[in-house]
């Protein structure tokens, strides 16, 4: 198991607006070719965070991004490039991620990936992971940087 090079503090997300705002803030910093895994159990806030991120990426505040759980991937375009929103829960083997186009996505798009642990050994060595928790309604987020992505740590100084 690859260890995170650097981790942020665990930050509180006071309400839904704070979760949306964190998503929007991340959208402003992330770039095509980067990989952000969203980790956390069902109900921890992955949907809300992804919504804030995708709205900011596309510049469309009214957008209601549908869940990618059944389609596996939803693709969006914004001024900064293409964004893939993926949910890998239904994958049986990591190799299936390649067949739904993960390599192409990594080469050209910002990848926002729910259940990234499904990738196992195929996880990109340079990546970020946001761990979300919900403890009786008290939500928190902690961002980790893996591999070369650690060089980006200081740009995320607010976390």
């Amino acid at each position, binding site marked *: 198991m690859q260890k995170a090079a650097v981790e942020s503090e665990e930050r509180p997300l006071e309400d839904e607006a704070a979760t949306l705002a964190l998503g929007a803030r991340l959208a402003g910093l992330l770039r095509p070719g980067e990989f952000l895994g969203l980790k956390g159990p069902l109900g921890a806030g992955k949907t809300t965070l992804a919504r804030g991120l995708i709205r900011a990426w596309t510049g469309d505040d009214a957008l209601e991004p549908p869940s990618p759980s059944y389609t596996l991937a939803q693709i969006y375009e914004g001024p900064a490039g293409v964004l893939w929103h993926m949910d890998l829960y239904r994958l049986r083997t990591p190799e*299936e991620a390649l067949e739904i186009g993960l390599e192409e996505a990594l080469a050209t798009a910002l990848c926002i990936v729910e259940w990234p642990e499904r990738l196992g050994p195929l996880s990109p060595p340079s990546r970020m992971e946001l761990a979300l928790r919900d403890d009786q309604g008290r939500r928190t987020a902690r961002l980790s940087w893996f591999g070369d992505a650690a060089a980006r740590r200081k740009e995320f100084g607010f976390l």
Partner: protein
Amino acid sequence: MTASQPPILVLGIETSCDETAAAVIHWRGDAGVDILSDVIWGQAEVHAPFKGVVPEIAARAHAEAVDHVIKAAMRAANASYKDLDLVAATAGPGLIGGVMVGLSAAKAVALAHDKPLVAVNHLEGHALSPRLSGAVAFPYLLLLVSGGHCQFLAVDGVGRYRRLGATKDDAAGEAFDKTARIMGLGFPGGPLIEALASSGDPRRFPLPRPLLAAPGCDFSFAGLKSAVARLWQGLAAPNEQDRSDLAAAFQAAVGDILVDRTANAIGLFGDADGRMVVAGGVAANQALRARLQSLAAKKGFNFTAPPLRYCTDNAVMIALAGAERFAQGWIDDLSAPARPRWPLDEAAAAARPSHRPGRKGAKA
């Protein structure tokens, strides 16, 4: 199309989702449809141990299966390629790899046997599927509620669809599956939740009903899922009664949401004494179906829920949509592209926000 329409023999192919499927039908216009064969490679119950992981995701799996299901469907129908009137295949929306496999196979059959090709929108297959099990005349209001879909469509005729509302996040069937996952149950979640709910107290756990009483007929289920997760987390050592009560509370919340949203959709549909069809896996839930049925009766709507077999992803509905389009003179070129995104109501989807009703008067 009239009853004198000569029967049309169609091969349908579906590879846009989890299943690789092929079917052969005899379409006889208003006189009905004979389903000659109906072959599906993937079956959810086989994969229950994986709790939701259904393996026909990858293009390779579709590619390995597609020739087999086409041959099996032709054999079971006792049909020969030269007798086909057309080949229909799903051309989207869906994961591009899977869609291309089925569409390419259809093109190969069409080219080899000199038959016309009809490229079908997967959602159009669902929209027309009620007509497989009997004569449901246009127009009708369709509530499509499954794991992957959750939307209201006004089906005015072949090729004429208006999306009245849709989910803003999770589909209703997805909410059932995820609730089952939270409670450590198997897959698919719908039947397991329904069974537990029948012996539970729906009033013990308070759950939210997102968008209840909001205007329009959109859905939202993500907040309900989070509330279930919190309640479940808060139980120290959940027993069978806890499970049943939470399942009952969840199912009651979904029922309240479906009834509230459907009442608004009936208003937006705008047809008094109309027809309403509920299709998709969620319609198999007897408690929810009964509530929708009684709402329809109250509104003076005729209620139909087609057999589940035709509501889940299958190639019969693709063959039907192909036949109905063909009968209206629509044929596609062999260069028809696979389309990962393909809103059924192109015009309405181009406007923002895409799911808002906006063209109430456009019905024929």
